[in-house]
């Protein structure tokens, strides 16, 4: 069943079609809200709110964009509103001492590949919220720049810039894995601050 048929079925009152829609798009919503909200215990409530909004506004959907883009927009706005409402709009500055400490917690000498991947993922979760958003939409959900612009309201140039900076930031944070001297330097800075 394609999206247009699915929407028509839901608008005619077929709730099984709505369950089908939720199953089809729940991964997309979980990825966006999960990356933004970052709290497993609150994730289900936010996702539920997203799908309730989808149901309530489905009649207003006009096929101007893909259904996935439209649902992603609702997921993004709901997550941002949630963070603002509960004052959880914390941004991690990668230059601060906590981020530096996170960097030095890693044992460079004895890492396993799996640990390293996990570590990189943790660093992604520590990125500032705007970076996390564009990275998730572009790399994970494979939305185009234009679609990300529609979803977040950020101009295309900003999206590209955030993507570039996010990668640069990650490379910077993980530099010590390539270069042992950088690790020593970071440890020294960390010790000075501590």
């Amino acid at each position, binding site marked *: 069943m394609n999206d247009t048929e699915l929407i028509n079925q839901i608008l005619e009152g077929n*709730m099984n079609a*709505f*369950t*089908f829609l*939720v*199953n089809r798009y*729940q*991964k997309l919503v*979980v*990825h966006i*809200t*999960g*990356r933004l909200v970052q709290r*497993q215990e609150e*994730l*289900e409530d936010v*996702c*539920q709110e997203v*799908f*309730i909004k989808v*149901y309530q506004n489905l009649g207003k959907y006009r096929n101007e964009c893909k259904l996935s883009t439209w649902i992603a927009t609702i997921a993004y706005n709901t997550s941002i509103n949630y963070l603002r409402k509960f004052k959880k709009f914390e941004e991690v500055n990668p230059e601060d001492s906590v981020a530096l400490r996170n960097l030095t917690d890693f044992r460079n000498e004895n890492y396993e590949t799996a640990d*390293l*991947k996990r570590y*990189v*993922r943790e660093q*992604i*979760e520590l990125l500032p919220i705007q970076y996390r958003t564009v*990275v*998730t939409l572009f*790399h*994970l959900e494979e939305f185009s720049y234009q679609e990300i612009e529609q979803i977040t309201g950020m101009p295309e140039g900003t999206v590209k810039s955030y993507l570039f900076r996010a*990668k640069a930031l*990650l*490379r910077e944070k*993980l530099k010590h*894995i*390539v270069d042992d001297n950088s690790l020593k330097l970071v440890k020294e800075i960390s010790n000075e601050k501590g």
Partner: protein
Amino acid sequence: MRKDELTDMIEQSLGAAPEFRLQEGFAQRVTASVIRQEQWKTDLQEYFYLTAIVFGLIALLTGVYYLVDKDLLFRTLNFFVANWVVVGFLVLTLNFILFADKVLLRLLFSRRRQTN
């Protein structure tokens, strides 16, 4: 680790799904929640329509009696004014029974069904 290996790993990690999961049966729970919300709206609407119809009929009856038998109408109104506490209590009680029947009980039962 070489620089290009690190770049590859970053690219791979950026495309990897975060470790957040929803519990089994999420779609069914959302659908049940939507059905309950829609039912609540319909029930509330029904209650308001019924209340409006009852008050409309009373107004119509008052209008008819005003034309047919003014004396009876004024006697009745005087009775209501004189016993406004009892009349008010009766009206509120009947209204609450209607509200409970049309909205509250249905909501409670649907919640209970979902919990079970």
